[in-house]
């Protein structure tokens, strides 16, 4: 990314935290907001700012793609269905435990 003096909405990161490429505080600022960006929760001016940064910073573009992939994988993580026999045996155990008290 180029070091433009854009009006970054929240410039909170410390210079020491600009780690992935020297002098790129935007990248760390962006990191804070990526989930909100992915979830479409940010105001349009901030989204525009982020998209502008992504166009100029390949590392951040790759990073955000990998975070999107991660969220997609989480959303589709398979889970085995409950067996009918377990549904019945758990109900029995719950009612037995409840009545035992």
């Amino acid at each position, binding site marked *: 990314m180029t070091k433009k003096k854009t009006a970054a909405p929240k410039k909170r990161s410390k210079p020491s*935290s600009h*780690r*992935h490429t020297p002098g790129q505080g935007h*990248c*760390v600022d962006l*990191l*804070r907001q*990526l*989930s*909100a960006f992915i979830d479409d*929760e940010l105001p349009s001016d901030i989204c525009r700012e982020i998209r502008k940064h992504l166009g100029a910073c390949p*590392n951040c573009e*790759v*990073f955000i*793609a*990998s*975070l999107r*992939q*991660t*969220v*997609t*994988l*989480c*959303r*589709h*993580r*398979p*889970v*085995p*269905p*409950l067996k009918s026999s*377990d*549904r019945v045996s*758990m*109900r029995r*155990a*719950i*009612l037995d*435990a*409840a009545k035992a008290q």
Partner: protein
Amino acid sequence: MRTPAKKTSLQRPATQEPDGFDKLYRDHVDLIYRYAHRLCGETESAKDLVQETFLNAYRGLKDFRGEARASTWLYTIASRACIRMRRKRKGEPQHELSLEDFVPTSEGEFRLQIPMEGLSPEEALQNKELRQALDQAIDKLPKKYRMALVLRDMEGLSAKEVGSIMGLNERAVKSRLHRARLFVRRELSARGITNHDDHKSGGLGS
């Protein structure tokens, strides 16, 4: 996979009679089992958590007035039971996750080395190695972060609903969710997953 819980009416004066419980159990056991399995990562613990949840629900049914959805009420009971039951999991880091820890420091940490190109998420997850990597990453998350991730990204609840279940404001939910996602991303990026042409083979290739 994102199946929001349906709104169930239990608005009648709640009773402790078996009929009320049976309906609650019948309508929600699959939902709560799925949630429990996603939290615990394996079947036996998930079943323990389901039983604990419904036993607590049985006891509390007479006080449940239907102000919240039954599913939200059960999610809340299950979440509290999970915190109580599994307070100390071996290998589970108990520390807070700091955003600074997720800033990539080398070129290879930016991307995921996983085979997803041209595949639907379901197809990609037929790769056993990828599934295991994802399960392990989620399992390594400290519980309060895992819970936010499961409720929001897997159960498909809103941040507001997650907040009401976990006793947090929306901002805190979003913060935990963000850190949880970054943690899982970092774990996956640290793994090179073999690109299988045959998704079903799923072996630990070279």
